[in-house]
């Protein structure tokens, strides 16, 4: 092990110094990106331009990786409760605060505004936490949309915005309960949105092929959008960012719901 460590340390001696402008990484394509990114893509934020335009393939498959992470989580953890073995279900009558226990597994209780299903293992959070989270959530979501839409001009973009958006729903699941959160983000809808995000990304790329350019060459969209090719690239980046954000948000929610409830989608955490 010491020998290995010595070799690694020896290898670091060949690294360029910190912040060395002549380091190989800064000489190859980076100056071109820095000089031409704005002229070619009309995007002030070079990082976004490189990520979504020059290296669009990378980002597309990153999105696909996130989607497959959610898929793996779903397949590994999701369990459907078997009908015969269904345990007791508890409902609270909101007006009288009485709790009803239903044992018959086949009995179907319709969704009603007077009854609230309870989870026996779930301890309710305090009113303060719930109220504060309810106040903050819309602002968090608004900020998430801002981060997605403003990825061209300031740090941010699809991944970050999607994570914030997903986290806002997870906050609701933490402060209220998983059932409330899953009413806002139904499992089936998330299951559709997660691949839909990847499809939006790939679809924008395919549109460019239809218009006669290379895959993910957003300049091709200029005719349809009625703008200059540079502005079309900027808009194309926005479209794929939306796709990334949708995919990341849905995947976050799927992963959280599966992990926190061990796949049962009841409150377990």
């Amino acid at each position, binding site marked *: 092990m010491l020998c290995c460590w010595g070799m690694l340390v020896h290898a670091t001696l060949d690294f360029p110094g910190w912040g060395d402008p002549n380091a190989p990484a800064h000489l190859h394509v980076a100056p071109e990106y820095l000089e031409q990114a704005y002229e070619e893509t009309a995007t002030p934020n070079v990082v976004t331009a490189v990520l979504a335009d020059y290296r669009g393939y990378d980002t597309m498959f990153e999105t696909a990786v996130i989607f497959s992470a959610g898929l793996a989580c779903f397949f590994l953890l999701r369990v459907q409760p078997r009908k015969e073995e269904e345990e007791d279900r508890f409902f609270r009558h909101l007006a009288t605060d009485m709790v009803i226990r239903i044992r018959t597994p086949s009995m179907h209780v319709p969704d009603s505004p007077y009854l609230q299903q309870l989870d026996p293992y779930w301890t309710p959070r305090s009113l303060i936490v719930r109220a*504060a989270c309810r106040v903050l959530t819309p602002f968090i979501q608004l900020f998430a949309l801002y981060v997605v839409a403003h990825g061209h001009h300031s740090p941010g973009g699809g991944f970050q915005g999607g994570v914030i958006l997903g986290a806002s729903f997870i906050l609701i699941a933490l402060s209220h309960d998983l059932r409330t959160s899953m009413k806002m983000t139904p499992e089936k809808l998330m299951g559709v949105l997660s691949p839909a995000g990847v499809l939006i990304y790939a679809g924008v790329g395919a549109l460019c092929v239809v218009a006669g350019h290379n895959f993910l060459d957003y300049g091709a969209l200029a005719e349809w959008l009625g703008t200059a090719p540079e502005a079309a690239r900027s808009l194309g980046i926005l479209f794929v960012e939306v796709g990334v954000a949708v995919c990341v948000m849905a995947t976050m929610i799927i992963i959280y719901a599966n992990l926190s409830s061990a796949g049962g989608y009841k409150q377990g955490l």
Partner: protein
Amino acid sequence: MLDLLAVLLTLGGLVFFAGATMGILRFPDFYTRLHAAGKLDTLGALLTMAGLAVYNLHPFSITTLLTSLKIGFAVGFIFIASPTATHAIVDAGVRAGLRPWVKQEDEQK
């Protein structure tokens, strides 16, 4: 004049931050430490960021005013979120059965 106000606000915030740090280091148990961290950090952040917002107004224009307003929003959210988080942590501590610290003599009685 504005600069003076900014310096005063920031210094006041730093006093509270210092108090919070002392409290976290010196207080005897979980609850008292959280008390120091939750309260003083909130006020410290409030004052420091208010100082930043005032300092930012220096060449007064719509742009700087907007930036200061954004800082104001951040302060508002900290003011809501930080005490709530402290409350949630204390709540979890109580539920987990952690007993508050008492003085040695009181315990022996």
